[in-house]
């Protein structure tokens, strides 16, 4: 129970009952979208930068996806159909094509595209942006372009331009890859690939972080850093179907519990990342049900074992721990806001084998496997588990501790701050048994397999393959799948890969967390973006002009 929960419990007793109730403000009931109004949202974090080559954190992404259009985007989410949600659609591109050998992408821009300052957008600006991401030392995006012909030479400072980025005309661009990569188009949905003009970037210099040249449905109107960022409709934006809300006010650094109080009073129009008591409060009131949106973003959680270090070098131990863990109990601790994972891929991602059943909760089998591996009453297994110091992570670790105690394994839990954990987790001599989490950059199976399970990613310090799992057969399948264009052949390869990982069990496969976002009833036509989550560019506000909500 969080501190806030205690406070709320006590305060409830002090100031009479605060029973759940429905929304305070209603929709006006318009049948055609209303253009205008102000949407109020908040983030618990601070926005660090609006420079598209740097911004990678969640809070910044709320703003960057409103400010920057990319060549490609995802089709809007369709309720109940995860698969359709991840289809790519052209955005700044009018059409695009990936060659049969998956080594050549060609794009044609829409005619008449303009920046917010009115000047035209050309393919040279896209090339400039991609090269800038490679040249900027602390850009996290360079590695996404590793397959582009000549990218490594620009990173190393041996060339000033990337050979594989070929400008055919102001509207036509060809990208050549040195290796086949079917997933590459997904990279061009990421905000860092938005076009930027070289002369503008040179002019504003270091101020680019707070003076963005918008290409998307919104422009930056004001920003008091750490307090509030205001976006306004971009008058030069090409798509009249997006950017229907006139102003978006994003308050930064608002604690999660405070956000809920503000939402409940109608001071915020949507809220995400609800704390447990707030989630229970909202779901106990049926009036909120129609605007409570659930979706499964690209996440995988569980526990990973360093397979190079005993006792985790023995597959029987790893499987035993998978049988010992009670995933259903974990889901209960998460109030049902998660689905059990059976492997490395979240629902809706190509190649996920929906017929593969998760490891069942079977303590007898776990004990048998441990005995086979030489651990039993006379020689009990004692393990140390490393996790984050937040409340949820500790609760889940406690659940694992109980499950392992049931099969005779003593678990000591060690907690760390996020920054310390992220550093220790990637070291070969770091924690041997630890929390595993991954939030995908794009919904391609390669993004879930390669960084985390390909032996190429293993380094003694800074290994994204934090189970230090090396399997030449898996490497071969992953390399073949990345070069296979045909979706069904590719899906089959990833199904084989997932089965292999399932059997080898370098992780205790945990769950895929669901996200819950609740909106006020007057926020219409809103669906969370399938990948970036908070994207209000298609939504509109059906406000009642007489409402006091309007007067604020």
């Amino acid at each position, binding site marked *: 129970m969080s*501190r*806030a929960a*205690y*406070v*709320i419990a*006590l*305060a409830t007793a*002090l*100031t009479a009952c*605060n029973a759940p109730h429905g929304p305070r403000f209603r929709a006006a009931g318009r049948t055609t979208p209303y253009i205008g109004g102000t949407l109020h949202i908040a983030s618990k974090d*601070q926005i*660090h*930068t609006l420079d598209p080559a*740097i911004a*990678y*954190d969640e809070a910044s992404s709320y703003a960057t996806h409103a400010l920057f259009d990319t060549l490609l985007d995802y089709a809007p989410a369709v309720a109940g159909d995860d698969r359709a949600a991840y289809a790519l659609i052209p955005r700044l591109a009018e059409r695009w094509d990936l060659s049969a050998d998956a080594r050549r992408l060609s794009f044609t821009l829409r005619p008449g595209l303009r920046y917010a300052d009115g000047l035209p957008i050309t393919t040279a600006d896209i090339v400039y942006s991609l090269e800038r991401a490679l040249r900027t*030392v*602390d850009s*996290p995006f*360079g*590695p996404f372009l590793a397959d582009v012909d000549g990218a490594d030479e620009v990173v190393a400072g041996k060339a000033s331009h990337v050979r594989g980025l070929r400008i055919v005309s102001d509207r036509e661009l060809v990208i050549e890859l040195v290796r086949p990569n079917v997933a590459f188009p997904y990279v061009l949905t990421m905000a860092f690939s938005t076009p930027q003009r070289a002369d503008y970037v040179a002019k504003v210099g*270091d101020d680019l*972080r707070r003076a963005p040249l918008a290409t998307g449905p919104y422009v930056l109107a004001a920003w*008091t*850093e*750490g*307090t509030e960022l205001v976006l306004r409709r971009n008058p030069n934006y090409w798509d009249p179907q997006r950017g229907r809300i006139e102003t978006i006010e994003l*308050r930064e*650094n*608002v*604690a999660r*519990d*405070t956000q809920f*109080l*503000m939402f*409940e*009073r109608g*001071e915020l129009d949507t809220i995400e990342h609800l704390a447990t008591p707030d989630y229970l409060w909202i779901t106990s009131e049926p009036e909120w049900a129609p605007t409570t949106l659930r979706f499964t973003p690209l996440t995988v959680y569980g526990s990973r074992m360093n397979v190079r270090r005993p006792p985790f070098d023995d597959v029987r131990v790893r499987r035993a721990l998978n049988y010992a863990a009670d995933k259903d109990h974990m889901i209960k601790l998460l109030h049902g806001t998660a689905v059990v994972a059976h492997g490395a891929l979240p629902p809706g991602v190509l190649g996920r084998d929906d017929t593969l059943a998760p490891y069942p909760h079977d303590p007898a089998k776990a004990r048998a496997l441990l005995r086979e591996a030489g651990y039993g009453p006379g020689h009990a297994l004692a393990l140390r588990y490393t996790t984050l110091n937040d409340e949820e992570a500790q609760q889940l670790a406690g659940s694992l501790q109980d499950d392992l105690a049931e099969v005779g394994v003593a678990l000591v839990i060690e907690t760390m*701050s*996020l*920054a*310390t954990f*992220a*550093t*220790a*987790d*990637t070291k070969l001599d770091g924690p041997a048994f630890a929390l595993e*989490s*991954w939030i995908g*950059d794009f919904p391609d199976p390669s993004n879930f397999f390669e*960084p985390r399970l390909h032996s190429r*990613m293993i*380094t003694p*310090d*800074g*290994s*994204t393959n934090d189970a230090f799992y090396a399997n030449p057969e898996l490497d071969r399948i992953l390399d073949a799948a990345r070069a296979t264009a045909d979706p069904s052949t590719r899906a089959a390869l990833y199904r084989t890969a997932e089965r292999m990982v399932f059997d080898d069990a370098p992780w205790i496969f945990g769950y895929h967390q669901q996200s819950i976002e609740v909106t006020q009833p007057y926020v219409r036509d809103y669906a969370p973006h399938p990948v970036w989550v908070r994207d209000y560019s298609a939504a509109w506000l059906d406000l009642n002009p007489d409402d006091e909500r309007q007067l604020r």
Partner: protein
Amino acid sequence: MIGLALRRLGWTIVVAWFAVTATFAMTIAIPADPARALLGPHANAETIARVRAHYCLDRGFVAEYACFVGHVVRGDLGESFRTKRAVSAIIGEHIGPTLELALAAIVLQLGFGIALGVIAATRRGRWQDRATSLVGLPGQSIPIYFIGSLALYVFAYRLGWFPIGGAGDGLFGRLHHLVLPALTLAAGGIAYYARAVRVEMIDALGEDYIRTARAKGLPERAVIRHALRNALGPVTTLVGLDLGYLLGGAMVVETIFGWPGLGRELLQAVLEVDLPLILGIVLVSAIAIAIVNLAVDLVQLALDPRLRDEEPRR
């Protein structure tokens, strides 16, 4: 007196240097890599290594410390890893709200604390004395985050008297937003000062000069004024010591109430291992605390002529 001030100023520099060096050593000792915190869990080993080299994070303690001190001596606090903004600009932007908050808290602490302390001392043993202790007790014993969350819930959310967090615009808006955070930050201090003033007042009221004053038929109000002036000497020392406590409390209060001050920035910087920002804020806070203590010493000298003769021989 000028010699004393200069000597104290020298000490201020030593104290600030020591605070920053200790913080530097601690941030280096934390097993959290700023480059990893900056780039996130997806970054590969090569990108991490490049960024470490870019920010001189791969040269060992002595070289990094020399690099840092070299910049500080030239008046350059460096750039925040996370936002690439000059640390001095970030501090400049957020020091104002923290000073407003700390000042408001000091005013509330002294105002309420002295008033309650005087009432308790002059009505010693009576119900006013006991009521003062009773009112002060929760303020001193309940953790600040609890008082803050409760105040936010009751006075902002339930009763709607104050805004739910933020800083507000204009003088009235600013003050309106300041009330709850300042009271929360002052809650512990009010009780503390009330008790300190009560004890000092009781001592002072028992002195010979008070008996003399009363014997000469001075009105009770004038007697209390005489006693209070003597009781306040030790209390001013507390104000100086208190600033450190207030800046620490500001971290919690600013986070709860979304007040855009240095404390919240420091908390964020610590969580994100933003070394230049952590060191910059610690340096400025250490200097501020040392300067306030210097000011308190000077005020005490002005209040108590006896100290002027004693001081140089210490």
